[in-house]
C-alpha cells in the first residue's frame, strides 16, 4: 500500500538522521510500536509542512520589513486595497494542504481504534496515586506505585540529590509486564478521579475515568523497560504516579505468568487475608 510505504520511508529517513536520534531530549520518541512509529512520522510530516509554510510567510514578512522601510524612503502604494483573486488563492491552497494532511492522520486513527483480535487483555485502574494492573482471565493483579528511593528523594527538603536516584520519579515497585510482538489490549478506568495512562514509546495515551471503561492497544516490537507518567491532573501527588512497563520475550513472559500464578495461590491460601492483601503484591522474577 502506498501509504504504508510512504510512512515507512519517512520513518527510515528520520530515524537515520543523526540530529533526530532515538533518545532525544527535544523531540518525540520514535517509539517501539507500529503505531508510535506512524505517529512519529505524522508528527514529523506536520513539523516540516509547518516549517515550509513558515519559511514562505515569515520570508514575505521579513522581506517587507527590510524592503519597505520608511527610513529607506519607501513610498506606500495606497491602491493596494483588496484582491478577490489573492483571497481565493490563500483560502484554497491551505484547504488542499489540510486535506492532504488529514488523510494519513485519519488512516492512522482508524488503526489506533481497532482493538480487535488482542491476544492479552490487561485492565488498568487509576487510583490516587498509583496504578493497578489486572491480567484478565489469568488471576493476576497487583498495584504499581512510585519506588521507595524516588519517594524519599521527592519529599520537600529531603536533602537527597535526585541525580543519584535511579530513574527518578519514573521507577515503580511492580512494573506492568507484557510479552513482545503481541497485541495487548488495555482496559482503563479510574477508581476515584480521572487519571490518564501515557506510555510515550508505545504512542498510547488514554484517560482512566471513573464509571467508564476505555480501550487502547499496543504491540511492542522490542524487549525492554519503558516508562511514562500519569497525564491528567489527579490531585496532590499527580506528579508521583509513574508508569513502568517491562516487555519480555514470549518465553520469559510465560515463565513470569506461571510464577505470578503460583504466588497468587500461596496468597489465597494464607489465613484470613485482609481485603487489601487479597490482591497479590508480587514482583517480576
Amino acid at each position, binding site marked *: 500500500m502506498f501509504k504504508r510505504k510512504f510512512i515507512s520511508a519517512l520513518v527510515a529517513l528520520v530515524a537515520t538522521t543523526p540530529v533526530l536520534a532515538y533518545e532525544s531530549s527535544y523531540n*518525540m520518541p520514535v517509539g517501539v510500536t507500529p503505531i508510535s512509529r506512524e*505517529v512519529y512520522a505524522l508528527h514529523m510530516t506536520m513539523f516540516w509542512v509547518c516549517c515550509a*509554510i513558515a519559511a514562505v510567510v515569515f520570508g514575505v514578512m521579513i522581506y517587507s520589513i527590510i524592503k519597505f522601510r520608511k527610513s529607506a524612503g519607501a513610498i*506606500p*502604494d495606497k491602491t493596494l486595497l483588496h484582491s478577490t483573486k489573492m*483571497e481565493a488563492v490563500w*483560502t484554497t491552497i491551505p484547504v488542499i494542504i489540510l486535506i492532504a494532511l488529514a488523510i494519513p*492522520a485519519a488512516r492512522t486513527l482508524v488503526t489506533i481504534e481497532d482493538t480487535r483480535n488482542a491476544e492479552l487483555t490487561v485492565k488498568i485502574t487509576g487510583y490516587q496515586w498509583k496504578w493497578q494492573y489486572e491480567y484478565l482471565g489469568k488471576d493476576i493483579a497487583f498495584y504499581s506505585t512510585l519506588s521507595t528511593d524516588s519517594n524519599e528523594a521527592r519529599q520537600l527538603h529531603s536533602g537527597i540529590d535526585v541525580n543519584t536516584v535511579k530513574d527518578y520519579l519514573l521507577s515503580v515497585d511492580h512494573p506492568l509486564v507484557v510479552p513482545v510482538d503481541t497485541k495487548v489490549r488495555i482496559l482503563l478506568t479510574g477508581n476515584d478521579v480521572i487519571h*490518564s495512562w501515557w506510555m510515550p514509546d508505545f504512542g498510547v495515551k488514554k484517560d482512566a475515568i471513573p464509571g467508564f471503561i476505555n480501550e487502547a492497544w499496543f504491540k511492542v516490537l522490542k524487549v525492554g523497560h519503558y516508562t*511514562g507518567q500519569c497525564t491528567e491532573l489527579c490531585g496532590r501527588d499527580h506528579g508521583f504516579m509513574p508508569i513502568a512497563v517491562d516487555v519480555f520475550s514470549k518465553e520469559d513472559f510465560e515463565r513470569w505468568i506461571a510464577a505470578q500464578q503460583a504466588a497468587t495461590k500461596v496468597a489465597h491460601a494464607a489465613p484470613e487475608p485482609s481485603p487489601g492483601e487479597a490482591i497479590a503484591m508480587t514482583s517480576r522474577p
Partner: protein
Amino acid sequence: MKTVSTNNVSADRHDDHKPSGIGRWLFATNHKDIGTMYLVFSCIMFFIGGAMALAIRAELFRPGMQFFDPGFYNQMVTNHALVMIFGAVMPAFVGLANWMIPLQIGAPDMALPRMNNYSFWILPFAFTLLLGSLFTPSGGPAGGWTMYPPLSLQSGNSFPMMIFAVHLMGASSIMGAINVIVTILNMRAPGMSLLKLPLFCWTWLITAYLLIAVMPVLAGAVTMLLTDHYFGTSFFNPAGGGDPVMFQHIFWFFGHPEVYILILPAFGIVSEIIPTFSRKPMFGYDAMVYATASIAFLSFIVWAHHMFTVGMPLAGQMFFMMSTMLIAVPTGVKVFNWTTTMWKGSLSFEPPMLFALAFLFLFTIGGFSGLMLAIVPADYQYQDTYFVVAHFHYVLVPGAIFAIMAAVYYWLPKWTGTMYDMTLAKWHFWVSTVSVNVLFFPQHFLGLAGMPRRIPDYNVQFTDWNMVSSVGGFVFGFSQLVFVWVIIKAVRGGPPASAKVWDADMPGLEWSVPSPAPYHSFDTPPDVH
C-alpha cells in the same frame, strides 16, 4: 474605509468637568474612567498571576521539591490560570473597549453607563473571593482551572468561593458584552455603516456575542458542580448515574469560544496598528471581517479537540479533527492580509508596531503548533504535556498579551496627552520578546520528550530545558516592571502629544479629538462619509 470631516474639534468647550474625590471612581459612569479602572485592575491581576507563574518556575528550576508542597503547587497552577484569563486578559480587553469603542465610532459614551460601572465593580469582589480562598485552612482551588470533576469535588472550603467568583466574573463579562453590542449597533456616528467600522470594533462586536453565548454555559457547568458537592445531585458523579465526561463537554463548549474571546480583540488591535505604521489601508478589510466571523462560528464546533484522549467514537474524533483543522483557513487569511498590508508600505517601527510584529510572528508559531495538535494520533502524544503548555502560552502571551501592550503603546498618548519614553518602551519590547521565547520555546521540547503538564517535579532528563525556561520566565516577569514604569512616567508628564500622535495618515475617529481625549468627547456626532 472612511474619511472624517475636520470640523469635529471636540468637546472640551462646555464641559470638561470631572467629579472629584473617590466618588469619581466608585460611581463612575464615564467610559474613559471605567476603561482606566479596568486597565489598572488588569495590570494588578497581571502581576499577581505573574507572581504565581514565577513561583511555579522557581519550583521547576531544578528537579526535586525545593519550595512547596505539591498541593500548594497545584493551587498556584490553578489560580495562575484563573487570574490571568479572567483577571488580566479579559478585563484588559474590556478596558480597551471602554476607552476606544466610543472614540472610534464617534459616540459620547458607552450605551449603558451604569451597567458599565456595575460590571467593573463586580470584579474586585470576584477576585477578592477567589484569592481569599487561598487563605482558607485547606488552601485554594487546586484542581486546575478546568475544574474537572471528580477531582474538583475533593476541594475544601475554597470550592464554593471559586464557584461564586466564577459566577461573578461571568456576570461581569456578560454585562460588558451587552454594553459593547448595544453601543456598536446603536451609537455609531451617522454614515458609519457596519462595513466602515474599525476592525477593533468589529472583532469586539463578535467577541461580545461569543461572551453572551458561552458565559452562561460556564455558569451552568459550575452550578452543577456546586449542587453535586453540596446538595446531593449526581450530574457528574458516576456512582449516582452521572457522567464526569459530560462536564468536560460542557466546559469546553464554553472553553473553546473562550480562547477566541481572548484572541479576537487582539486581532482587532493588530489590524489597527499594522496599517498605521505601514502607512497604507488594511488590505482585504471585508475578508478580515468575514474571517473573524468564520473563526467565531467554527469555535462552537471544535470543543472536543481538548479531550481526544477521553475515549470518543471514531466518527466523533474525525469530525473534531477536521473542524479544528478548518480553523487554520480563516486564521491564515488574517495572517496573509496583515502581511500584504505591510507589502509595498512605508514601515516604521515605533513600540506599538514592534509589539504587533512580534505578535504576527509568534502568534503564527502558536498557530502552527495548534495545527499539529489537531492531528488526533499525534495529539495522543501531545495531550496534557508541556507541548500544549507551550502552544497556548504562545498564543496567549506573545499573542493576546503582546497585542494588549501594543494597544497601550498605541493609544497611551491619546489617554495621557503626553508622549511616553520611546527608548524605555523599546527596551521593554526587546527584553520581553527575547525572554518570552527563552521562556516558552523550550517547553515544546519538554513536552515532546515526555514531560506532562501540571507536575511539580520531574525526572532529571528534563532539567536543562526547565532551567532555561525558568531563566526566561524570571527575565520576562521582571521586565514587565519597565512597562509599568513607562506608563507611570507618561501619566506624570512628558512632551505633549498631538491629536494625531503618530506620523501617519490614520482614518480613525479617535485621532480627530485632541490628546488627551477630553473627558466628554463627541457631544455632537462627527460627520462620517
